[in-house]
């Protein structure tokens, strides 16, 4: 066994490094990039890629090496396309988390509103919750408070569709919390200040 190791074809080892790099990369890698990070020359990397391509091809493996415009990357084998489609379309989270819901409620009722303001009302940093809602398209940027001020956010038309509203005036009423947006805002800020620390 030890003997076998010693006579291992050195390109095999490089091929394994290439596999490792491709499985952790979040974009296709060029021969030049692979050569740079493996500290090998491009010719040897090409040879290694040949070995990887033989091992990872349709019919032989569920992982397939693909040469695309930007370089090399792994993709799923075509025979597994249905399962892969079910995986990505799987309703990962049909509902919204508590953090997302609270943030969305603040933006929907008080928007346009800045992240610091949302954070003050919720009592915790709002960065990741806001980023998540922006990514889902439920919230979008709506200018700044003033020049050089914080970016403000508002609810989007997609938000209205998802919640079945024609416009913001159809949001459930919160009369008991104050007549208008300003009153609601100052009430929320008061409660948050008292809850603080």
């Amino acid at each position: 066994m030890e003997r076998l190791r010693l006579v291992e074809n050195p390109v095999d080892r490089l091929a394994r490094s290439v596999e490792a790099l491709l499985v952790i990369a979040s974009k296709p890698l060029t021969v030049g990039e692979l050569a740079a990070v493996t500290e090998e020359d491009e010719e040897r990397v090409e040879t290694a890629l040949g070995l990887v391509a033989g091992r990872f091809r349709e019919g032989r493996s569920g992982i397939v090496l693909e040469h695309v415009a930007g370089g090399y990357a792994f993709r799923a084998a075509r025979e597994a396309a249905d399962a892969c489609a079910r995986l990505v379309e799987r309703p990962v989270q049909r509902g919204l988390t508590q953090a997302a819901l609270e943030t969305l409620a603040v933006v929907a009722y008080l928007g346009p509103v800045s992240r610091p303001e949302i954070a003050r009302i919720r009592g915790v940093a709002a960065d990741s919750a806001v980023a998540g809602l922006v990514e889902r398209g439920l919230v979008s940027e709506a200018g700044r408070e003033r020049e050089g001020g914080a970016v403000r956010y508002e609810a989007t038309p997609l938000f209205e569709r998802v919640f079945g509203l024609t416009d913001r005036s159809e949001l459930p009423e919160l009369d008991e919390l104050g007549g208008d947006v300003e009153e609601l805002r100052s009430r929320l800020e008061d409660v948050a200040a008292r809850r603080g620390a």
Partner: protein
Amino acid sequence: MAVAVRELPLDLDAFEGPFDLLLTLVLREELELRDVDVAEVVLAFVESRAERGELDLEACGEFLVLVAALLELKARGLFPDEGLDLEGLDPEEAAEELAERLAAYRRFRAAASWLDERLEAESDRFFRLGAAPLAPVPSRALAQQDPAQLAAALRALAVGSPEPSLRHLVLTYPPLARFLDRFRTLLRSRGRFAFDNEVDRLSRIEQIVAFLALLELRKRGEAQIAQAGPFEPITVWNVSAS
């Protein structure tokens, strides 16, 4: 390193000796906590660290837990009527609590160093974060949602919790220096101020620390304090200006 904290030499008005002995005496009620200047203890610690010229995180962590516990005991002493379960904490119980507090902290510190070692051992383990380059793109459709959820979320945020009792009160301590600075500024600029107005919007624990700061200013002769009777407003004024 823990030894260094325990043996931290202190030279206070009310006490001279190692930190560890101070704790013991306080717990045995041989020394009144109200006579102990916690700020001086902190200063002594900071100075001892500065002399070594190195930041010893282990010692800092242990010291912070002990000082926080001391401050908490001191704060409890100032509000003896509150929190039924806290009343009449005898020295035995206090020692037990202090030891438990420190033991709990040490367990988590040990867990933290376990995590640190684990991270080191796993430093050659790489995986991809996020989507694969050629993965199918999900549509991320969100199911239809009920707008009543939004109203409920906002109502919950608008309803303050019930008036906090000390029973639930979990203590974090703003630095005493913050209030010392603020009060000194007020005394310089206005000559006098109403304590209640200054702490009105603060949390209970901030009010406690603010009050400790007030006592500290008085002890140092920087301020005079007057109160017409229990629960009446407290007036503070600058000694030299009066």
